[in-house]
């Protein structure tokens, strides 16, 4: 009996400690502590309360786009005849990093796509604006979305604004949440066609197909037979029940705070910033370039007008290591534009240094402040008007 009690005490104590850790959010506390030690800007400058509207934004940020597309389909169906404008980009279009001197948020903060959507709505114009963005979105993911949208008349945009960003060319792969789109058989055929063509961007698509099939088989290793196994069904049931426990769902937030803590350690102790001037080489670049060209081609074939735009860059954070990097990058984007007859809107140097946020005591290379978002929205609206959108 005594032995049984001793085991129960160990297990119970472990569970109590675990609950305590969930409640305590230890990494967030450590992260705050580090910020205090290194006199970082207050946490509210990295705005957490962002404006949310499922009719103008893909709110899952790539985690569950199917749900978002369902909402979009219903929303756009109610405005038949309107011009549909969609923007694809990375976290620059999702987040606000308040610039020094900007006041703390008094409500949900809006990004430049939200301001554009507001303008269109306020003007009563027959234009609908939608933001289809995700943090660190790769060009393969943009192509992934473009291929999917081109086969769905209900959510196919008339105009697709594609963000060009030098550092973004280093991102690759298709994130897990986007794989669910493969359940659409037409889309799957298109993906398989890309894989069979075996271009530089084929790998990510092949890997996505492989991962999706493996996960669909639900049997774990690909070596076992297909079909939903007992183990899979049990696991799904357990997860569903666990997710009902208060606090258990905060796993994502705790992981984010852990990752932030690691980033802080890197920046504060090793002085290694998130973005630094670099020469982009290698596989990722080849794949990103191929994906961008494929995106232009796919959209062209399905009647979607693509407009590329050079994302603003922070003047205080040089991204190109050498003038050659700068030249080669722009030569490439121009060559894609001229090959497919696309327009490029250049906002690269449009936002002054004072309208950018700070991140971990260094100028944020990517995220605009409140005024920066407003300015970019104005510039983009004007440029779109000029180009007949």
């Amino acid at each position, binding site marked *: 009996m005594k032995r049984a009690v001793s085991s129960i005490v160990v297990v119970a104590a472990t569970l*109590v400690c675990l609950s305590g850790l969930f409640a305590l959010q230890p990494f967030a506390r450590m992260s705050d502590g580090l910020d205090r030690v290194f006199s970082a800007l207050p946490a509210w400058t990295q705005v957490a309360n962002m404006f949310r509207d499922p009719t103008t934004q893909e709110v899952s940020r790539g985690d569950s786009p199917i749900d978002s597309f369902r909402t979009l389909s219903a929303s756009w169906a109610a405005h038949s005849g309107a011009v549909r404008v969609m923007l694809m980009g990375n976290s620059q279009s999702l987040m606000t990093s308040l610039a020094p001197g900007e006041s703390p948020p008094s409500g949900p903060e809006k990004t430049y796509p939200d301001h554009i959507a507001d303008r269109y709505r306020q003007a009563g114009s027959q234009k609908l604006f939608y933001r289809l963005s995700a943090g660190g979105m790769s060009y393969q993911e943009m192509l992934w979305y473009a291929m999917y949208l081109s086969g769905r008349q209900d959510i196919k945009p008339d105009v697709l604004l594609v963000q060009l960003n030098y550092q973004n060319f280093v991102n690759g792969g298709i994130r897990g949440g986007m794989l669910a789109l493969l359940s659409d058989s037409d889309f799957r055929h298109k993906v398989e066609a890309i894989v069979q063509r075996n271009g530089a961007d084929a*790998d990510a698509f092949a890997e996505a197909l492989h*991962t999706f099939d493996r996960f669909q088989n639900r*049997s774990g290793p690909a070596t076992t037979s297909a079909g939903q*196994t*007992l183990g899979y069904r049990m696991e799904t049931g357990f997860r569903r029940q666990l997710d009902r426990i208060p606090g258990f769902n905060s*796993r994502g937030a705790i992981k984010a705070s852990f990752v932030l803590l690691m980033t802080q350690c890197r920046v504060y102790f090793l002085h290694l910033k998130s973005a630094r001037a670099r020469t982009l*080489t290698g*596989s*990722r670049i080849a794949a990103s370039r191929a994906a961008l060209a494929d995106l232009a081609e796919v959209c062209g074939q399905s009647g979607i007008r693509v407009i590329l735009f050079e994302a603003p860059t922070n003047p205080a954070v040089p991204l190109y290591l050498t003038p050659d990097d700068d030249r080669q990058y722009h030569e490439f984007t121009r060559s894609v534009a001229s090959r497919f007859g696309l327009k490029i809107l250049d906002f690269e140097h449009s936002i002054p240094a004072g309208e950018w946020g700070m991140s971990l005591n260094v100028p944020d290379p990517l995220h605009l402040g409140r005024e920066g978002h407003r300015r970019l929205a104005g510039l983009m609206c004007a440029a779109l008007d000029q180009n007949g959108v």
Partner: protein
Amino acid sequence: MQFNSYSYLLLLIPATALFWALPVPWRRWYVLAMSILYYATWNAAFVAVPLALALGVHLAARLLIAQPERGRRWFWSGVALVLAIFGFFRYRLFLLANINHLLAAFGARPMSVAWQIAVPLGISFYSFEAISYLIDAKQGRIKKSRFSDLYLFIMFWPHLMAGPIVRFRELGPQLDFARPFELRMLLRGLDRLVWGLVQKNLFANPLGSWVDQGFLHNAVRNNSTVDSWALAVAFGLQIYFDFAAYSNMAIGVAQLIGIVLPENFRFPYHAQSPADFWNRWHMTLSRWIRDYLFFPVTARFRGSPGALYASLLVVMALVGLWHGAGWGFVAWGVLHGAYLVLYRVWESLGETRLAAVTKSRLAAWGWRIFTLTAVTAAWVPFRTATGADAAHMLAGMFGRFRFGFSYPMDFYLLVLLMALFCVVEPFLAESWTRAENTIAALRGGLLAHSYLLRPAIYACGLLLFLIFDDRSTQFIYFQF
């Protein structure tokens, strides 16, 4: 159910409690039932495979023991049966692909299989265990073959899927489950289980996502020299953490019900030579190969170094093939065979006038560095999809130098961090043991350690496991 799935971990608690609540004679049947159920959660149809294998091996072993004069015949019949089942599931498609390759070269029509059958999980592991059972029976270590013993030995769930590869003489005597419960045993089991969960989710999986992308065909073609090295190191670390995690969990879970399984890893990247690497990496497989393949071969070719070295290469090629039906695995095995041959040649120089050189510190460090580099390079054919990709990547690592960083800085930092962890791992393990002993020696220290410190550490480990949980990942060695 994977070892790191929520369902497995949550069911493990009541399953373990019930085990200890049962009368001792019932426990073996309970564990057998749990093991069959566990295997069935992956694929119920495949439960028949280890059953058929156990029946065949049991019959061969009984006949072998009953008719010692015909022992050789029954022994080889049993081994042939195991290899036939193993080969059928594991290698028939590989064989067919190679035959078709040859047929295509001669312009003939390729052959195809009538139906696709998946490979039963863990077959490589329990096939080797079944063979070791036959060898033990042949060598007189098993006096009487009991089917329930053999079946439980094969099916025992902690080691069923991916080892450790156990000998019957190690596990068999423990399968009466008569060991009384001890809190210390439970704590040791939990230590290993939680550490395994952390190794898998915090160490192996984050590396895996980079490795998956970096070893894709087009990526391999465009990676720089730095990228290729970083990826090869990343894969070496990933597979180590992944497999060591599985082994830790298997050993830990077995300990929860009072069973001691052999160790599988001992800081392999601290190996001082290629031979030492195999004393530290997948130790139970190395032991199996050494005892049942290599020692008989060595005995046969004593005094004939050329034949011995050739047989070493063949044995290691078979080790490679055991890992998977592909030429990349064979290449990996042959490379390791070549390293071992090289080291044997070097060792043989120790018996000549060069003895002083071979025993110098410089030589020792040279072998350390060579082993680490060579083992890392050998992971390349193991992981790449094709031989051409492997050749391309190795050329980039050793000859066709190209500078550049294709991946975000986080990837290189992660590899560096994990590599550093590997460097300090033995020292951390040693310090942990020392600290444990110190605390336990204090007045009331044992109580505090068992009921406060350990639960707190388990909770930290579980938190890391939970926040880095990714349901779509699997253990690498489950494929083998």
